[in-house]
């Protein structure tokens, strides 16, 4: 694969010479794309350039697959913002180079805090990381998506109706992937349709998978890179807030929820509507189950061979079915 990447870099940088790629490793990260870490070196005129890079390639199958250029477009659009995102270099949709579409971006400093690892995933910096986590999410919600050229994202031209558009989308994904009927999931979706949330103050860029494990932090507790934007779209900012506090990846372990929401409000300039947040918490459970349903279908069909996909389908699927039932119990469904 190194040689194929060298050939591609030569194609994209015709003035470069002595191009070399080594230290290529596949890494876990963003299960909806294959992720490779590599080191590249080339000569540009009289200068030797050395870069640590990340290559993200579309998978054969797996979790819900986004548009291949979406994540690249978002990184480019947010490059000038206050958000820590990696710089991107090349987007390639032609499968001739590496069999499937891919893009290349900078390797950020830092490491992910694995939400499922025992002990402290942030090496004693949990509170500082959590404060940055909420501040960045508020900053994202404050950005005018049209001003940064992201109006082409899903729902990008809409002013309202985000809850219904997103619920319809995930309902459809469940229907397409479901092999064992899930009456609890169907019942929760009907509850969501009967009890719509209030409209947001304004449309916002929704990361779509903003949670522990999808950002990098450094030794001093700073967040150095927000990653995995494959499910980014325009919608209600409460969608990201609710996803961030889902108990499967609880940031509230490191900072009380009220403190985190206060930071988000200050950064976004918006007020958290608790009733809306409760609606989006149940929506998050539905969305998570849609993702695990897709994972189960792709592993069951043999399209995916990734162990993390199978584990997600089994363990995470049960977790979110149980969580969804608890949320319905809190709504009085069980009497």
């Amino acid at each position, binding site marked *: 694969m190194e040689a194929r990447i060298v050939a591609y870099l030569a194609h994209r940088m015709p003035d470069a010479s002595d191009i070399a790629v080594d230290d290529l490793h596949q890494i876990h990260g963003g299960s909806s794309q294959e992720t490779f870490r590599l080191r590249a070196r080339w000569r540009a005129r009289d200068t030797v350039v050395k870069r640590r890079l990340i290559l993200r390639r579309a998978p054969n199958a797996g979790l819900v697959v986004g548009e291949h250029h979406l994540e690249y477009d978002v990184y480019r659009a947010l490059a000038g913002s206050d958000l820590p995102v990696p710089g991107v270099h090349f987007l390639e949709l032609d499968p001739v180079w590496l069999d499937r579409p891919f893009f290349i971006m900078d390797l950020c400093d830092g490491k992910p805090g694995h939400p499922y690892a025992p002990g402290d995933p942030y090496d004693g910096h949990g509170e500082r990381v959590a404060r940055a986590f909420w501040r960045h999410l508020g900053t994202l919600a404050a950005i005018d998506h049209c001003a940064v050229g992201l109006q082409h994202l899903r729902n990008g031209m809409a002013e309202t109706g985000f809850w219904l558009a997103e619920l319809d989308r995930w309902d459809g994904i469940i229907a397409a992937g479901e092999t*064992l*009927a899930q009456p609890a999931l169907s019942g929760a979706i009907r509850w969501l349709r009967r009890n719509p949330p209030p409209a947001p103050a304004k449309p916002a860029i929704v990361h779509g998978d903003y949670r522990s494990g999808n950002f990098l932090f450094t030794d001093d507790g700073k967040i150095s890179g927000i990653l995995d934007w494959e499910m980014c779209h325009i919608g209600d900012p409460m969608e990201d807030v609710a996803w961030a506090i889902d108990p499967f990846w609880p940031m509230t372990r490191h900072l009380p929820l009220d403190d985190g929401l206060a930071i988000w409000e200050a950064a976004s300039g918006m007020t958290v509507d608790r009733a809306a947040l409760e609606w989006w918490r149940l929506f998050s459970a539905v969305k998570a189950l849609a993702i695990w349903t897709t994972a189960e279908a792709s592993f069951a069909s043999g399209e995916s061979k990734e162990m993390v996909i199978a584990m997600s389908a089994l363990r995470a699927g*049960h977790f979110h079915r149980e969580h969804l039932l608890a949320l319905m119990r809190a709504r009085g469904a069980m009497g």
Partner: protein
Amino acid sequence: MILTIETALRGAADILRDRIAPAVDDTFVGETARLAGMLLRMNADWVDDAAAIRVAENAVLRALFADARSVVSDASLAARLAEAAQSGDPGLRVSELDRESNRLRGLLTDLHLHVEASDRSFDQRIWRLLEDFEAARAPR
């Protein structure tokens, strides 16, 4: 002693975790081996009572459908419930039981939709039953 599927899977899982994963230099492949071991262990936990859980669940659904005939006004749905209440599992293979479970759960979804606006008590009974099903199928 009989070498059960459960014991064989646990043995393979232990080898992956204790011998193979630590010996792999490539971090990604080593982690994949460790996850494969976890996957085998989960299935080892499930395999012994997989059929029993499905048989019990399907029986509970058939009993519910029998009770539901008195609260369902729709003739077509009532007929489907009556048929399902009288039905039996087609066999004891897990694949056969899963297909039957999917059929019965699909009918439960239709019943749930029907009663949730008209019979609060029956609606709540269904939600409690769904909690029980999930608890029975929980990874151990």
